[in-house]
């Protein structure tokens, strides 16, 4: 069923905003949305991005065991030979199958994700990465086609994963542009995007900016009461935030502060009416973030949301040394937090309406780097997870690279995979499921038209 996209007035009563910033909230939340779609679905959907900062090593995340169906050139023994001291013992891998009768192994720390995969709630997207256009090894080596800017640089590749603009620096993120396209479908002016991971370009649209919540932190202004002196001070605070002074940085800082105060007021009000969730989340950074996301999804009705995007993160994946230890710790946290989050969507009855996916700077070299403890260096294409009831799980999407140094998929000589699926295609599958019209996909993923193959069909 479709409903008109005309912006609805904020359903939370103005009284609930207290004296604070109701007027500025409305003006800020009711900007005209040029990209907004003509029609909107009436159901609820959410996308949750988990960004693994540092560049997660895909080669030890999804390991081929016996894969005649998807890439007969690969085998566990070939993997183990190149990986040397970094090879994960085959007996410790969480074995998964695919529709081609192959056997792969997920990292030993990914027990929960493997179980979700086997229950068809998780799909694996292999060798996805930043691309401007499809790229062969010869084209890359001879610089005969457009190549993403500043490959192997953390900041640049994080940015490209977040902007889906593999050349040039985009000023907006693809999450933000999806929100621009879909924003009009929400029935309140509360931001479509909520980041529990601070400011990240993924969340910034041309017309929309995210709400941010720091998991575990007090929401809202402290130190005011109903005394005349306090009321006068609050009124002075508001006037300092609102009068026009013509100075750009002061205006920007004022807008951020106004947004923060308004968002906190609205969220506090909504969360106060939310029923507590029974799902227990791990007491970890990502666990706390996803717990916060679940609490906000739980009050989607109070917030007037039909479409939401969330951004969470975990750092520590830049495993130049101590990789076996550090990646294991990180992936265990990811697996346990994602499992708890999936459980919470079941509890809320929205498991089919929430899709969670991973991103990361890049993959890492297949060949280890030396040192007292082994690690790996910066590479390119890598493997990622998509989770949710709507996901066609239990299968592997994309083309698995041949794990061979200087082999057919290697960009140089250390096992640096030239991606065979672009981030744009990966994102387009997610955005299409989310409800972005085909006609709007080009505005979200400007390079999508360069890729003739259909986006991966995991949704």
């Amino acid at each position, binding site marked *: 069923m479709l409903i008109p996209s005309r912006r609805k007035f904020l359903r939370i009563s103005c009284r609930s905003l207290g004296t604070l910033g109701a007027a500025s909230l409305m003006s800020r939340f009711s900007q005209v949305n040029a990209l907004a779609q003509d029609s909107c679905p009436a159901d609820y959907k959410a996308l949750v991005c988990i960004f693994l900062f540092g560049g997660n090593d895909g080669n030890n995340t999804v390991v081929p065991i016996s894969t005649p169906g998807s890439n007969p050139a690969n085998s566990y023994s070939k993997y183990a030979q190149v990986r040397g001291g970094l090879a994960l013992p085959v007996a410790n891998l969480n074995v998964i199958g695919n529709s081609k009768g192959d056997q792969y192994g997920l990292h030993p720390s990914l027990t929960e994700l493997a179980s979700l995969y086997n229950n068809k709630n998780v799909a694996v997207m292999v060798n996805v990465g930043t691309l401007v256009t499809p790229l062969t090894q010869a084209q890359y080596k001879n610089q005969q086609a457009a190549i993403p800017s500043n490959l192997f640089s953390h900041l640049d590749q994080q940015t490209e994963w977040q902007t889906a603009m593999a050349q040039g620096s985009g000023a907006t993120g693809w999450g933000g542009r999806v929100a621009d396209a879909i924003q009009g479908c929400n029935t309140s002016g509360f931001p479509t995007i909520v980041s529990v991971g601070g*400011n990240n370009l993924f969340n910034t649209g041309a017309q929309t900016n995210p709400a941010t919540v720091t998991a575990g932190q007090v929401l809202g202004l402290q130190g005011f009461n109903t005394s005349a002196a306090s009321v006068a001070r609050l009124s002075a605070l508001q006037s300092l935030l609102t009068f026009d*002074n013509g100075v750009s940085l002061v205006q920007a800082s004022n807008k951020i502060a106004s947004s923060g105060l308004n968002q906190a007021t609205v969220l506090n009000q909504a969360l106060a009416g939310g029923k507590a969730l029974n799902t227990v989340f791990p007491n970890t950074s990502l666990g706390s973030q996803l717990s916060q996301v679940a609490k906000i999804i739980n009050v989607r009705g109070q917030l007037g949301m039909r479409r939401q995007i969330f951004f969470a993160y975990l750092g520590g994946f830049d495993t130049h040394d101590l990789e076996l230890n550090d990646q294991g710790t990180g992936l265990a946290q990811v697996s346990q937090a994602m499992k708890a989050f999936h459980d919470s969507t079941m509890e809320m009855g929205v498991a089919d309406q929430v899709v969670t996916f991973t991103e990361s700077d890049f993959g890492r070299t297949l060949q280890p780097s*030396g040192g007292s403890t082994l690690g790996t260096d910066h590479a390119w294409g890598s493997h990622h997870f998509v989770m949710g009831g709507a996901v066609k799980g239990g299968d592997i999407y994309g083309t698995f690279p041949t794990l061979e140094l200087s082999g057919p998929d290697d960009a140089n000589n250390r096992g640096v995979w030239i991606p065979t699926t672009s981030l744009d295609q990966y994102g387009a599958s997610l955005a299409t499921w989310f409800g972005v019209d085909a006609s709007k996909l080009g505005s979200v993923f400007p390079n999508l038209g360069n890729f003739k193959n259909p986006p991966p069909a995991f949704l």
Partner: protein
Amino acid sequence: MGNRLLLASLCAFWPAYAQVTVTVSPSPASVHVGTFLQFAAKVSGTSTTGVSWTMKPATGAGSISTGGRYTPPATLPTPNTVTVTATSTASPATSASVTLTILNPYPTLASVNPTSIPVGSFSITVNGSGFVPGAQVLNGGTPMETVYISPTRLTASGVSFPVEAGWKIPIAVKNPDPGSATSTDVVSVVVGPSSGPHILGANVAAHFLDQAAFGPDVATLDHVETVGLEEYLKEQFAAPISPYPDPATTGFGINQVQARFFTNAVHGQDQLRQRVAFALGQIFVVSAIEENTPTQLVPYLEILQKDAFANFRTLMKDVTLSPTMGEYLDMRNNDKADPTRDTRANENYARELMQLFTIGLSQLNLDGTPKLDSNGNAIPTYDQTTIQNFAKVYTGWTYPTKPGAVLRIHNPAYYIGPMVPFESNHDTTSKTLLNGLVLPAGQTAAQDLEAALDNIFNHPNVGPFIGKQLIQHLVGSNPSPAYVARVASVFNDNGSGVRGDLQAVIRAVLLDPEARQGDNGPFAGGPTDVPSAHLREPVFVIASILRGLGAWVNDTNNLTAQAANLGQTLFAPPTVFNYFAPSYQIPADLIPGTALLGPEFQLDSPSNSVARFNLVNSMIYGNLGQGAAIDLTPFSNLGSNPPALVDAISQIFMDGQMPPKVQTALLGAINAITGTSAAVNKARAQAAIYLAVSSSYYNVEH
């Protein structure tokens, strides 16, 4: 002897018996209040070597952990001895005891007020920690007439002589026995008139101190107005370093190192050095997320302090060979390529030294703008092959060899002094570096390293790359290309043919006309968007408000937690990319039609912005926990005269340029608090200061 004979005879009759003995070290033992002592127990004669630790008296004289770590009480107990006993768990009848003498704490010195004293009779207040009754203030080593006020404050009086005029006299504090010790912190007073005729406007001095210091305080403001900017810089370049606690002697944890940063930032007399070192630490990043003990972190902070006013090439080498950096970016124990394990040299340090610390990703013009090829594209400074070649240069280095130990291929972790080479682990093949420089095969690790650092140091990018970032950290987010070019030119040649002279670069950054443009800011008739504008980062918000309020802090403060609430855990950026990127752009919808950089805005999320209001609330209305206190008296005294109160706040916090509408807002809040009592005056000061320093008019500097 008799016992041994007895034992021998017993054993002959009772072979199953084995004598269990316990020995405890150190013995005898002593420990200073404020530190701790780790005891060790050796149990022989049984395979069960565990002991339980007890002490006598059991309470009131400190505590001992199950692992034998003794922590003294906060103050010296009477008597100042305890008996520590280790009892064998295998043989509870067997134990050993040690008499432990508890000594007075080590005194540390944070600040002296005033910082300049007249010729003749004078008195000073000394702030610090660990003071005990009987402590003496030493003036150039001479004991002064001292009055003990509290563990963190002493007052003292003495006489200075005309011959000392202009001299800096070191001040120290000596605690009495038991365990008499003298502070090692470098704090001094200048003999001479504290103030003379002002040669600068307060607006200029206050604005300058937001760039060259952690904001103005009343005394420094007056001083800079008196001596001028050039002279103040000269003094600052000569000021002794405010130290970090020595991990080897203090037993401090990382939180006390973080606390000392704030002590130095609020009270240190070497404000500019602290500012520059903090800026350099955000370019040459190591993070306490991994380097999380004082043993690791303090030697690195000391390099940044020492090299803040040195040559950039010295800084490059000291950082490169720092074991802490070596650990953080994997240059320590970086093995040459190993064909048997099929490993290659680690690329981490090779990449980040160039990308983040020195030249960046694309070739720059002198003014910091990118050079473009014929298609209008940026030109990379290096490619993956260059990285792999530099990675080979950085092979073979390991932790410094511990005194008394023998150099090994992978020395055990040790952080004092520079890393050392283990030559046979160095890749001696030839390497092709920047601009095609080829290092011949067969060089030593040190030869390769020096040549590689020279190769990078002499790349034309370094001046604009580093110059622009120093401008962004000290002055403003959006310097014009011409400003960057002026600073880069000084980097390239300080006027005497020297490249990389950081003192000259800092002078160029701070005295540039664009840095001074905001002296008369947008609210004093200046242009609206000045290049010197930037958002205060959370650590500066805290330090500069405290300085403006004349606060005192010491090593027990927990201000780090306050900064962490705003997204900036001191010394612990999330990655080597720092807390924020120099290229971070303020989101377009916040300032439509204007594209401006705002690195600090990357931390300024809506929720962190709310947290900033709540931080100010804690500072002004609540308390900051132990180790930090503000005194609102100078402002409360103006509570009955609201315009004067607002003016005082404007002078200290807004360079005397508070916009009229802000003044009106503050007056509205002040006048809503009615009455004439002291409590009313304080409430008025609180309301006005809260509004001023939580507002964007304070948090954005011009």
